[in-house]
């Protein structure tokens, strides 16, 4: 009698395990989470390279890092995977070529290079002055000259620059936009802009070190990147 009960109990538990295993097989495994688009922030300068003298005792490297630290959480909250070329003030600091290498390896949706200057007013937005490549996307096995890597992304970089300019205009921040030749901007394989934050007013009353001014700039950039990414085909970088 006791053996019968044990056997019955064994059969029952075996059956349950079998059913459970079958259910487990039949139930589709949860889909892997969709990878979040990567945005690379590059706070320029750092270490021995202090950059421009923005305030009485403030160097450009400190302002760019502070601004990047304000943009990072705003972009993360909007669903982006935000990476930075430097989190602190490391010595030695990566060179512009090393920064471009880091960013290109991550295949980011966009790269934003941050600078600061004591001259001019408002925010200066620059895209690469390279001529646009004839093919929209370079073939995977094509050799791209290092100094002209950005040429295949000029159109999408200009669209990103345009969205950011519009966002700054809405935030009533004076902007001037242009094109330049600058490392690592020319070496990036992603839509890329260089943003230089100058004093807000011509009389220098709101310098780039002003926390409130930096926050306005950060919010405008984060909003513009989200809006731009929503309108862009993530596979090609082209406008939808």
């Amino acid at each position, binding site marked *: 009698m006791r053996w019968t009960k044990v056997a019955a109990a064994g059969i029952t538990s075996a059956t349950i395990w079998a059913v459970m295993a079958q259910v487990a097989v039949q139930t589709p495994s949860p889909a892997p989470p969709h990878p979040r688009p990567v945005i690379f922030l590059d706070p320029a*300068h750092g270490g021995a*390279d202090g*950059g*421009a*003298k923005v305030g009485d005792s403030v160097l*450009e490297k400190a302002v760019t890092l502070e601004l990047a630290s304000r943009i990072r959480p705003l972009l993360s909250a909007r669903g982006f995977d935000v990476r930075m070329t430097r989190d602190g003030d490391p010595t030695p600091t990566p060179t512009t070529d090393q920064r471009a290498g880091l960013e290109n390896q991550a295949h980011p949706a966009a790269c934003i290079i941050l*600078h600061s*200057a*004591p*001259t*001019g*007013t408002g925010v*200066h937005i*620059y895209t690469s002055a390279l001529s646009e490549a004839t093919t929209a996307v370079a073939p995977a096995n094509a050799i791209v000259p290092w*100094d002209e890597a950005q040429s295949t992304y000029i159109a999408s970089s200009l669209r990103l620059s345009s969205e950011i300019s519009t966002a700054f205009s809405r935030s009533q921040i004076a902007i*001037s*936009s*242009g094109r*330049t*030749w*600058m*490392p690592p901007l*020319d070496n990036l394989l992603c839509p890329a802009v*260089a943003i*230089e934050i*100058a004093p807000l007013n*011509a009389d220098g009353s709101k310098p780039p070190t002003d926390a409130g001014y930096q926050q306005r700039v950060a919010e405008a950039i984060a909003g513009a990147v989200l809006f731009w990414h929503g309108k862009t085909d993530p596979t090609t970088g082209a406008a939808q």
Partner: protein
Amino acid sequence: MISRYQRILFWILVGSSVFMAGYLIYLHQRVRSTAGTEGDDTPIAAPASSQAESITFALAHDADGTITNTELSVALPGESAVRARALVERLLSDDALPRSEHPLPGGIAVEDVYLVNLPLTAPQRTGGESLGVPQLPTKAEDADPMTHASGQLAVVNLRGSWADAHPSGIETETLTVLSIIGTLHANLPSISYVRFLVDGQQRATLAGHIDLARTYRSVDTANATHP
């Protein structure tokens, strides 16, 4: 009791003090009114035998990040390379004036400007000539656009002391390079490319931002034209 002569002496001293204060205020105002020309670091122009002519300068404006073509009457030498050097020197020395809209460091900025005829050709290699084999360019030579270009390459050799003192920033450095290129293009149409050296050496950036190791096309860089 103060004696009479002491009172007279006292009032003479008071009067002298008031007079000297007034004279100091007058001198101070006179210095302030002439302060605008005191910081002029423009080198004294060498006596020129040539006539003054209308020259187009591509002037930079930091406030709005623009380049404006502006005509000025200047006497320049006739020889192309010397003319190019004088043009760039005049452009950059005007930017060093106190009321400049694109403030740059004073002093002499340009060491030399060299004009090189294009296309560049490599020195003849030995070996093939004796066999009558035509000299073909190597793959690297063929890939260099300077071996196919026409016109002239202007090599602007800047002074290191001037470049080191140049303000750092994307906008200000870009405007400096664009204004030099635009001025050369407007006045010396034979120049098709421009390269920059600092103290005779290639330098990565001008002051930490714009790429100075690149060969730039000589083009019109102005956003607006003022007569």
